[in-house]
């Protein structure tokens, strides 16, 4: 990767990075601090303070005791996996056709996809639920995953990624007699692995954090996802912000870990494709 060697530049770069770090991660740290505060801490203190006076892990224990976390994590993982596989596979295929091939109706389809992103979810969620019900998938994990199985934004990202592959690569393959399917699997897909990873991460985060849709689809507790389950921590009569914060941290960690593991693949598209001369 390109990197300049000027020291002043480095200093500027790291200064900006650290400032951004504070700005972007600071609130998250505050959330962790809240989750660690014990009964001796005034969570509404003015000015707020970061280091708990009576640090405790009790809030986390409470979360695990009150909510069958592992069961809900498993449900959420199933939904997330269906969503990841669906989004990566379907949007890669569609993106290839839209970004790489010439065919009648291509622009129309692309425009329709763009427009679907504009449709407000609030307006169609009940219709979606009635569709899910009509195919008897209400109250199932598949029912949660299905409408999100392919996001228009992911198709568009993949289309864009396929567009940016140099034409020469394919032309060379065509000369060798590869058909469109071989070109897809052997030439193009390896080039867009980075974007596929991004699509996977977006799908994971989307499935993991969604609240309203799973709530509407699921009525049986054994099929709850984590977001719905953790909502229980909000008491009907008394609320404990520490508990809610602990719940939030518990639900965030898997995504942060997932992202940390996969972020390096954004950069692999180029190397694996081997276009570098």
């Amino acid at each position, binding site marked *: 990767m*390109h990197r*300049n060697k000027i020291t002043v*530049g480095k200093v500027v*770069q790291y200064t*900006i990075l650290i400032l*951004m*770090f504070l700005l*972007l*991660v600071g*609130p*998250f740290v*505050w*959330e962790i601090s809240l989750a660690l505060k014990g009964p001796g801490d005034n969570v509404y203190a*003015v*000015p*707020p303070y970061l280091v708990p006076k009576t640090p405790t892990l009790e809030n986390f224990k409470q979360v695990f005791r009150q909510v069958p976390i592992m069961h809900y994590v498993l449900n959420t993982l199933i939904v997330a996996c269906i969503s990841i596989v*669906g989004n990566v*596979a379907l*949007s890669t*295929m*569609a993106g290839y056709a839209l970004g790489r*091939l010439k065919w009648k109706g*291509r622009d129309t*389809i692309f425009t*329709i996809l763009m427009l*679907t992103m*504009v*449709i*407000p979810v*609030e*307006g*169609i969620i009940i*219709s979606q639920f009635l*569709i899910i019900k009509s195919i008897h998938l209400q109250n199932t994990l598949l029912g949660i995953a*299905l*409408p999100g199985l392919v996001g228009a*934004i992911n198709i568009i990202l993949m289309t*864009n*990624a396929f567009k*940016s592959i140099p034409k020469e690569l394919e032309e060379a393959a065509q000369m060798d*007699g590869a*058909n469109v*399917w071989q070109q*897809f699997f052997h030439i193009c897909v390896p080039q867009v692995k*980075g974007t596929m990873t*991004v699509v996977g991460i977006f799908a994971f*985060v989307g499935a993991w*954090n969604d*609240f309203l849709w799973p709530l509407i689809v699921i009525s049986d507790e054994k099929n709850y996802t984590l977001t719905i389950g953790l909502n229980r921590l909000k008491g009907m009569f008394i609320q404990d912000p520490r508990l809610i914060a602990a719940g*939030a941290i518990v*639900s965030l960690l898997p995504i*942060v870990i997932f992202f*940390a593991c996969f*972020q390096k693949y*954004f*950069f*692999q*598209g*180029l190397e694996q494709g081997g276009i*570098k001369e």
Partner: protein
Amino acid sequence: MSATPDGGPSHQESRPARVHRSLGTTLAPYLFVLPAMCIVVVFVFIAALNTFRLAFTDSTLLKPGKFVGLQNFVELFHDEYFLTALLNSTLYVVCVVPFMVILPLILANLVAGNSRVMGFFRTSFYTPVVMSAVVVGMIWSNLLDPKGLVNSLLESLHISKEPIPFLSDRWLILFSSMFVTIWLGLGYYMVIYLTALANIDDSLYEAAELDGAGPIRQFVSVTMPGVRSTMLLILMLSTIAAFRVFNEVYVLTNSTAGPGAQDITMSMLIQREGTGIMARTGYASAISLVVLVIVGAMLILQSVVERWVGGDNA
């Protein structure tokens, strides 16, 4: 040249000599988009068609209505909240989109690289994106409160004497929400830019460096053209997102859209009219349709400008 396994009978009148291959080739694009389109058609398109139909009725959620022609639209243009929402959502696009296109690119450029340190920064910059909107709202409401961290900081640095009413002034609420939107969007669009950056050939930077270009000139002359199509994409995506803004305003105002609902946005208006037991689905659908038309127009405008300014890049 082998036949594809998926090539079924075709009605295409291709020349006999080429039939063998073109079956697969002509059908291929359709087969590639078919699975994705099935989902989109069933779950978005049909639902959206329903919205289109409802927009001309006086339906409520639990009682089907009758056709009322353009009555909903007439009512809409006399609805004081509609005009406010239109103004707020448009302002959102104008103010937020430029930041969304430029800042994440700069950020992506700063964190590109395979070192562990950069991996750490990338991960940490992405954390706001994964936080649930409720948590984001809770955190920023606390930070921007009159006695919150931001105001305490500004006062102790003698930048301001009195607490700044970030969460109670009609305009400051909107700007605070925009700030949170940008805060959230940085990590999101940074990730998209990162993949685009990875596709820029290193040799271009090396050549520029040989020519004596500094980091800023390299950014302008190599990076920017290299990610041009991604920039256009993010321009469109962030325009759509900005016009449809919901979460940030909703959580910062505790679901009320500010004093007197003066900070209401189009999506909040749809949510307000179109959800709940007595939802006016007909009216809400009419608003949805208007949003669709406006954003559609914005996208067309952008692509016209794009073609006019620069050549086809694809």
